[in-house]
């Protein structure tokens, strides 16, 4: 279960997750560190302060669900699930390798705790919405959290889901945007501007918050607010920094989908150790 972790604990867990992200992409020689590091503080707080789950009973019907719509950030997801006790750290060495359960993008049920296959961008919100509507039909208290990227929401399907969740007033659905401002080809505002984000989501009928996605207290409070919203879905737009926590990765588009060298990796791990 997630309950009971202090914010101080969560920060420590976040530090370990950051290290595991660096290690996985280094071992694999590829993967997506930038968006994994930008979402680390959000996901650490969500899993270890807010979400109801039981790693010993992964199919518990009333658990909360997490859908990683920005599915390329598997290093973050796998690190988080390993911290949550779903599987052993040893598996992380197999990330992206042949015959591994840790696929480049998540595959549902390959390992306990992976709720859904994602990776083709733009699909997670509709999936999360279906889960949330289904949980309501099941009279389950389960809630659904969907993490999207701000580049990802250029996909039209996101806005179809934004419309339908607003229409159905699906209040057991919480969207989280890891708004790091960058995508593979460059800055989101240059490639295809998605601003003004808060206005757009509000216009689609969502309760909307904008926070600093690296401020644990702010994330914690925003999640509480979003979870308690009734009569509409809630979204938290988290302003983040791609590659957060590693100086030479922060704000560097290249590290969206490039692994650091072994030497860079050692520096990164050292920086994380000192900074957090």
């Amino acid at each position, binding site marked *: 279960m997630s309950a009971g972790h202090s914010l101080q604990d969560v920060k420590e867990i976040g530090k370990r997750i950051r290290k595991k992200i660096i290690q996985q992409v280094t071992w694999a020689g590829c993967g997506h560190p930038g968006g994994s590091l930008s979402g680390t503080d959000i996901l650490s707080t969500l899993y270890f302060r807010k979400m109801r789950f039981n790693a010993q009973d992964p199919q518990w*019907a009333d658990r909360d*669900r997490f859908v990683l719509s920005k599915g390329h950030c598997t290093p973050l997801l796998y690190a988080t699930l390993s911290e949550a006790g779903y599987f052993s750290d040893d598996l992380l060495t197999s990330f992206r390798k042949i015959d591994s359960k840790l696929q480049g993008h998540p*595959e*549902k*049920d390959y390992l306990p705790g992976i*709720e*859904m*296959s*994602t*990776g*083709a961008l733009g*699909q*997670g*919100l*509709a*999936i*999360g*919405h*279906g*889960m*949330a*509507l*289904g*949980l309501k*039909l*099941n009279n*389950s208290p*389960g809630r*659904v959290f969907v993490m999207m990227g701000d580049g990802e929401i250029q996909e*039209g*399907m996101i806005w*179809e*889901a934004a*419309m*339908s969740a607003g*229409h*159905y007033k699906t209040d057991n659905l919480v969207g989280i945007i890891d708004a790091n401002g960058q995508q593979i080809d460059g800055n989101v505002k240059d490639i295809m501007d998605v601003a003004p984000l808060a206005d757009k989501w509000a216009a689609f009928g969502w309760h909307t918050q904008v926070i600093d996605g690296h401020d644990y207290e702010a994330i914690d409070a925003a999640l509480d607010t979003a979870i308690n919203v009734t009569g509409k879905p809630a979204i938290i737009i988290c302003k983040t920094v791609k590659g957060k926590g590693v100086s030479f990765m922060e704000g560097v588009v290249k590290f969206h989908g490039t692994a650091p060298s072994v030497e860079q990796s050692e520096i990164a791990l050292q920086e994380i150790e000192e900074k957090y």
Partner: protein
Amino acid sequence: MTEKKAMRDAYGEALIALGNSDADVVVLDADLSGSTRTAMFAKVFPNRFFNMGIAEQDMAGTAAGFSCVGKKPFMSSFAMFATGRAWEPIRNSICLPNLNVKVVCTHAGITVGEDGACHQALEDISIMRVIPHMSVYVPADYYEARALIIALNDKPGPVYVRLARAGSPVVFDENYQFNFAEYPVLQSGSDVSLFACGQMVPIAQKAAQTLQAAGISVDLININTIKPLHGDQILKSVIKTGAVVTAEEHSILGGMGSAVSELLAKNAPTPIEFVGTQDVFGESGDGDLLMVKYGLSEARIVEAAQKAIARKANRPS
């Protein structure tokens, strides 16, 4: 004259039966519920019906999510839009995780008629059957459609069902039970195997009678399951007859005929003629007239059978 009944009406009726027997069944539509007949379910079970608006991708993703929490979603639209617009969510969010989502589409084929080419799905069998985990069914009439939908509810996994808009001659009766292991043999014969699906089945029945009158013995099989293909049964027929005609209201590229020919090329190369649309788009017009114009006719099947049999005779020994 043979009684005509619409497969989509069977779908609406089957959904109501499932709604009564299984509380986990949910139905999604994309603003065509009156046409697909999911509105019949919506009227009886409003809390388990979700109109997603004109947004097929969202419908597919939402259906996937329903499945993740144990519901049994049926999602429907016209074949063109659900399989076309939502192909990638169907592939990646339904089939890749092997979810229990039934994609049931109406208005397939050229008999959509007056709405014209943009609404006439002639590629849907092809694009659905190439996706791993997906099964593909094309019932021949109202009774088979109803029996299939009810039987599918107990068969987990992603499924595509192709239904027509218009009323078509009935082939079976109300006692029909869908058999997932074997195709219905509508007529046994020894000169040519005639494999038909969907609305081509009653037309193939007429063609078989015409051929019979001309002294040609036809083995007529209703290929209601295009994936997984019942290969043994097909091969058994083909080895007996040595000549094949496939007939489908679909492009000859990638559909049922292609599936059969893939099987035969590997296991029993045999002269085969394909009755279907010839890599062209359709157009507006009366459905029955379009069927004839685009070669989906009794006459075309008869010609194809004669051609296949002639090729059998000329086969180098």
